[in-house]
C-alpha cells in the first residue's frame, strides 16, 4: 500500500491532467489509481505506462519481455511489457500463467513496420491491449493508436483497421486488421470463465533476453527485480523450443506452436472445452490432442475430413484445413488473424506427415 498523501497527490494530478486535457503528460511513473479505477481510462496515456509512447519506451518499473513462441497475429510486431506494483511479486507456476498480484498490468502493443524485413524501421503502432489485474479480476481493454502516434483511444466495441506492409518475401500485403472487442478478448483469455493471462508462463518466458545493460534469462531477471517469486531453489523451469530451432525435436516444436496458438481455448478450462480437443503442451492422451480424433461440432470446418490429425497425411487432417483457411466459418483460431501463417503451417505439415 502507498502512503495516503501520495495517493491523494496522484489523484489530484490526474484530475488536473484531465481538466486541462493535456495531450502528452510525460510521466515516468505508472498511475496506479487510473489502473485500479472501476472504469477504464479513455486514453492510454492516462495510465503512464510509457515514458515515450511513440517509441514504446516504458515507464519505470514497466519491464519489456518476449515469448519463446508467440501467437500468430497477421505478422504483427508485438511489444510486451509487464508491470507489478512495488513490493509485490507474481507467484511462479510450472505449467500455468504466473499468479500476478492485484495492481499488475500486462501490456501488448501490436504494430507493423513498413517492411517486415526491417522490423525497426517505419513502425506504425496499431493498438495496445491491457490486461489489468483489479480486485474483481482481470480486465481486458484495447486502445487504438491515433494517426500521429501520440496516444491511443479506448475501443470497447473493436475496430477494423486497414493495414499495409511488405512481407518477408517482398510482397505488399493489405489486410483488414481486426482490433478485438472487449468480449473477444475474453474469447481467448478465459480460464474457467474468468479473464486470465495466457503468455506469461514459465515455459514460454524461459529464454535469454537482451536488456541493453545485460543479457540474461527472463525468469532470472524477473526474480532479480522482485516481480517474480517462488521458483523453488535449484528448480529447472520447463522450456519450449522456438518453432524454427532445427535442433529441437519436431514433435516438441509442433506441440509448442499448438500450445500457444490453440491451447488457450482448446483445454478443459478454456472456451474450446466443448470439442474435447485439448492442445496444452503437456497433453499426453493422443486422441485428446487430435490423433485420429473425429470432429464433434465442426460443421463445414471438418472440410469433409475424418480426423483432426490423420497421421502421415497433413492434407487429410482437419488441423491443416482449418489453420490454412481464412473463411470465418472454418478458420482456426476463430479470431486474431486474417492471414495464413506460412511458417507455422510448414511446421504442422511436416509434423503430421511424419506421424505414424
Amino acid at each position, binding site marked *: 500500500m502507498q502512503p495516503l498523501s501520495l495517493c491523494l497527490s496522484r489523484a489530484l494530478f490526474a484530475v488536473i491532467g484531465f481538466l486541462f486535457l493535456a495531450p502528452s503528460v510525460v510521466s515516468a511513473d505508472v498511475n496506479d489509481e487510473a489502473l485500479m479505477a472501476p472504469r477504464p481510462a479513455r486514453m492510454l496515456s492516462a495510465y503512464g505506462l510509457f515514458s515515450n509512447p511513440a517509441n514504446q519506451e516504458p515507464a519505470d518499473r514497466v519491464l519489456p519481455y518476449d515469448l519463446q513462441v508467440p501467437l500468430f497475429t497477421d505478422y504483427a510486431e508485438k511489444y510486451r511489457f509487464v508491470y507489478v506494483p512495488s513490493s509485490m511479486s507474481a507467484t511462479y507456476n510450472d505449467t500455468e500463467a504466473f499468479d500476478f498480484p492485484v495492481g499488475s498490468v500486462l501490456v501488448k502493443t501490436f504494430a507493423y513496420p513498413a517492411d517486415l524485413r526491417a522490423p525497426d524501421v517505419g513502425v506504425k503502432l496499431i493498438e495496445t491491449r491491457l490486461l489489468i489485474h483489479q480486485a474483481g479480476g482481470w480486465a481486458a481493454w484495447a486502445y487504438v493508436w491515433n494517426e500521429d502516434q501520440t496516444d491511443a483511444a479506448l475501443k470497447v466495441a473493436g475496430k477494423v483497421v486497414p493495414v499495409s506492409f511488405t512481407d518477408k518475401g517482398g510482397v505488399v500485403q493489405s489486410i483488414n486488421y481486426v482490433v478485438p*472487442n472487449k468480449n473477444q478478448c475474453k474469447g481467448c483469455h478465459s480460464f474457467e470463465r474468468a479473464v486470465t493471462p495466457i503468455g506469461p508462463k514459465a515455459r514460454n518466458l524461459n529464454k535469454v533476453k537482451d536488456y541493453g545493460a545485460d543479457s540474461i534469462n527472463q525468469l532470472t531477471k524477473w526474480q532479480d527485480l522482485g516481480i517474480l517469486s517462488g521458483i523453488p531453489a535449484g528448480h529447472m523451469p520447463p522450456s519450449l523450443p522456438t518453432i524454427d530451432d532445427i535442433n529441437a525435436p519436431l514433435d516438441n516444436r509442433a506441440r509448442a506452436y499448438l500450445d500457444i496458438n490453440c491451447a488457450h481455448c482448446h483445454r478443459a478450462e478454456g472456451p474450446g472445452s466443448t470439442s*474435447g480437443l485439448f492442445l496444452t503442451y503437456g497433453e499426453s492422451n493422443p*486422441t485428446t490432442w487430435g490423433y485420429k480424433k473425429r470432429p464433434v461440432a465442426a460443421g463445414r470446418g471438418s472440410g469433409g*475430413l475424418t480426423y483432426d490429425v490423420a497421421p502421415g497425411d497433413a492434407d487429410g487432417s482437419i488441423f491443416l484445413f482449418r489453420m490454412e483457411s481464412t473463411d470465418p466459418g472454418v478458420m482456426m483460431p476463430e479470431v486474431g488473424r486474417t492471414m495464413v501463417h506460412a511458417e507455422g503451417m510448414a511446421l504442422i505439415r511436416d509434423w503430421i506427415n511424419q506421424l505414424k
Partner: protein
Amino acid sequence: MGIFWKAVLPIAAASSLSLAAFAQSVVDVSAEGDFQENLQEALILAEPGSTIQLPAGTFNLLTALSLDVENITVRGAGMDDTILSFAGQVSGSEGLLVTSDSVWLEGFAVEDTPGDGIKAKGVDQISFKDIRVEWTNGPDAENGAYGLYPVESTNVLIDGALVKGASDAGIYVGQSQHIIVRNSRAEYNVAGIEIENSYFADVFNNVATHNTGGILVFDLPNLPQMGGHSVRVFNNKSVNNDTANFAPEGNIVATVPKGTGLLIMANNNVEVFGNEFADNASANVLLAAYPREYNDDSYNPLPRGIYVHGNTYGRAGWDPDKDVRDLIAPRTGIPVPDIVWDGAVDGFWSAFLGPDEEDRVVIQEADGTTFANLQFVKDLILPWGADPVFDITDHAGKREPIAPVRITQEGDD
C-alpha cells in the same frame, strides 16, 4: 454513440425485497450510424438487469456479436421484423455468442452466418424465445453448422424458434443439463433438433419437417460430458424429412439417412411418446449404437432404457438411404419397419437373453406398428448369423415415466 438509456421505474421499488433485481433499464439500439458498433457497444456496456431493444429492420453485420453481461434481455421487434444478416461476415465463427448467465433472447432473426447462428457457451439460464435462424439460400454444405447452439449450459429454454438450412443441426443442444425445446419448428436442416451428450431434456410440441433427420438424441465419445440420459421426446411431429444429407463428411450427422423421423444413438433412459412420425422414407424410428471406432473406456455406445409408447406412425421406409439402405433394408425388406433397433447389446449373455431389465428397450404401440430387432451382436457371435426378429411383443411392457424437466427461468429449481 447512438444509445439512449431509458430508466424504467421499478414498480416494486417500495418493496425492499429485491431492489437490485428490479434495477432495470432499457437500452434502445439506434439504427442510425454504425449499427454494428451501436449494438456491440450496447452488448458490452449494458448493466446487468437491463433490456437491449433492437429496432425493426434488416442490418448487415461484418463481425461476430458477443454478450458477456449477466441478466440481460435482448429483444427485437419480432423474428420477421428485426433481421441481423451476416451474409458479409468477415470475422467470428458465429453470429452471436453468449457467455454470461441469465440471458433472454427474444424476437429477432439471425441470417446467413458463415459459421453457427447463435451460440451460448457455459451459460446458466439461456432462453431463446421466438428466434429465427435461417440460411436463406436453402440447404447447402456451405451453410453454417448449427442454428441455435447452447453448449455446456444449464437451464436451457428454446421456445417458438424457427430454424432453417443448418448444415448440421438446426436446434442443437450439446453437453448441457436441464433443457426444454418446445413449440419450435426446424426445417431444411440436416438434423432438425439434436440433443447430444446431455442430461434431462424435454423436447415437445415441435415440428421437424423437410430435414434429413427430424429429431436426433445422440451421445458421442471423447467429450467432457458423456453418458447422455433422461431425455423425453413427446408430442412432436417429425414428418416428411425429405432433404438429402448435405452435411460435410467427417461429422457424425453426415451419416444420417435421408428420411429419418427419430434417431436415438447411445444414451440411457429416453422416453418417446405421443409423437407423430410419418412420411420418412428411411425409417420413422431408429435405435442404434454408436457405429464408429472410438478410444474412450468411459464411453457407453449403446442405447439403453429406451421407452417408446403411444406414438402414431404413418408411411415410412419405402426408399431407404445410407446405412438403412445398405445394412438394414437387405435384412428387413422394404418398407423398412416403423421402429428398428440394431440389437447391439453389451456382451455375449445379453445377446441371447436380452439386456438387463433396466437397460431393456420397451415398446408399447398400437397394433399394426411394425418393428425389427436386427440382432447385430448375435449375428456377429454366431457362425451361422442371426436373422432379424420382427415380433414387437418381445418388447412389450411399461417403464416408470421420466419426470418432467424443470428449469430455473420458469420458477423451478
